[in-house]
């Protein structure tokens, strides 16, 4: 009797449960969608979807609360960390995160994010740095690179006129209440996977009550950068990464064992 080895088909990749099965309004190739998906995958892996509350920003991600299959709230521009603080303090057994763009977090909301960290609030922030105000039509952000053209810096951002782009991960790492601060990028599959591991560490820090955690994600805005989605990924690698180096900027002692577990 001969025996043949049968093969069967296994699903190796599908939509995470923590991401609602709806179309998003993001432009083609915008990496906001990738940031959403890896956050959702981490929530699935940690098994915390049904006790997670996301706070959406003002910016292109304003509707993120509809895209995450978790509870959600929508904060005034830049105020997501303040709202998340209130939610976490009233419901400390819930997992609370903010999802914010660079205009939201690094301009109008810079005071809120800094003070959330100085208080050591036990929340997680996903910070999407695309070096521009996407939603309002491509104006200069605090993170816009020197020489980068935007609708409010025609001819390129000038450092004499507007100073230097702010490096948020470095800034937040200097704050005592920060437990885990990292910067990652979404410009290729390897970096996406690395970013996901950092997001997992950030949520694990919160689950262990260790204080404030933030992952900055270098992201694209092909529409307002006026390039194709593929060219936008290449620009992140060639121009953004050198000014915004990737890595872990603050890892509290108590966070280190969690990084082995992820």
């Amino acid at each position: 009797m001969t025996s043949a080895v049968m093969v069967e088909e296994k699903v190796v990749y599908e939509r995470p449960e923590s991401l609602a099965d709806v179309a998003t309004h993001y432009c083609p190739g915008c990496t906001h969608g990738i940031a959403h998906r890896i956050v959702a995958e981490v929530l699935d892996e940690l098994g915390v979807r049904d006790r997670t509350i996301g706070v959406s920003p003002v910016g292109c991600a304003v509707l993120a609360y509809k895209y995450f299959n978790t509870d959600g709230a929508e904060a005034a521009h830049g105020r997501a960390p303040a709202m998340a603080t209130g939610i976490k303090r009233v419901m400390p057994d819930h997992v609370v995160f903010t999802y914010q763009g660079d205009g939201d977090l690094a301009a109008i909301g810079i005071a809120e994010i800094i003070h959330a960290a100085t208080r050591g609030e036990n929340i997680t922030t996903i910070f999407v740095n695309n070096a521009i105000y996407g939603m309002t039509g491509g104006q200069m952000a605090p993170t816009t690179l020197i020489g980068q053209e935007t609708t409010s810096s025609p001819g390129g951002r000038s450092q004499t006129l507007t100073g230097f782009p702010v490096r948020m991960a470095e800034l937040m790492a200097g704050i005592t209440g920060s437990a885990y601060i990292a910067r990652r990028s979404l410009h290729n599959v390897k970096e996406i996977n690395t970013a996901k591991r950092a997001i997992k560490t950030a949520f694990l820090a919160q689950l262990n009550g260790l204080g404030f955690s933030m992952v900055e994600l270098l992201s694209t805005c092909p529409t307002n950068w006026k390039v194709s989605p593929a060219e936008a990924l290449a620009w992140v690698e060639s121009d953004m990464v050198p000014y915004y180096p990737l890595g872990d900027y603050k890892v509290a002692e108590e966070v280190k064992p969690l990084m082995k577990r992820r």
Partner: protein
Amino acid sequence: MAAKGRIEINEERCKGCTLCALACPQTIIEMATDRVNAKGYYPALLVDPDVKCTGCALCAVACPDVCITVYRQVPSKTRRAEAAV
């Protein structure tokens, strides 16, 4: 033998951004040229007559719109009686 796989693309969700095609090591994803979806985008298509897809899922990880489901062939745990005929 290289692993065998296949992908399903949700054409109506696809925004024709090309990032899946850029990520695929087998270069077997193309954007349609003969039709658009309801949103007006040329959707991505798997063009794989020689079954080169390995089910590596790099395309799915690169897709900002979670359009791609990936399948891989694995040896079956249940060896069925018919197989032995």
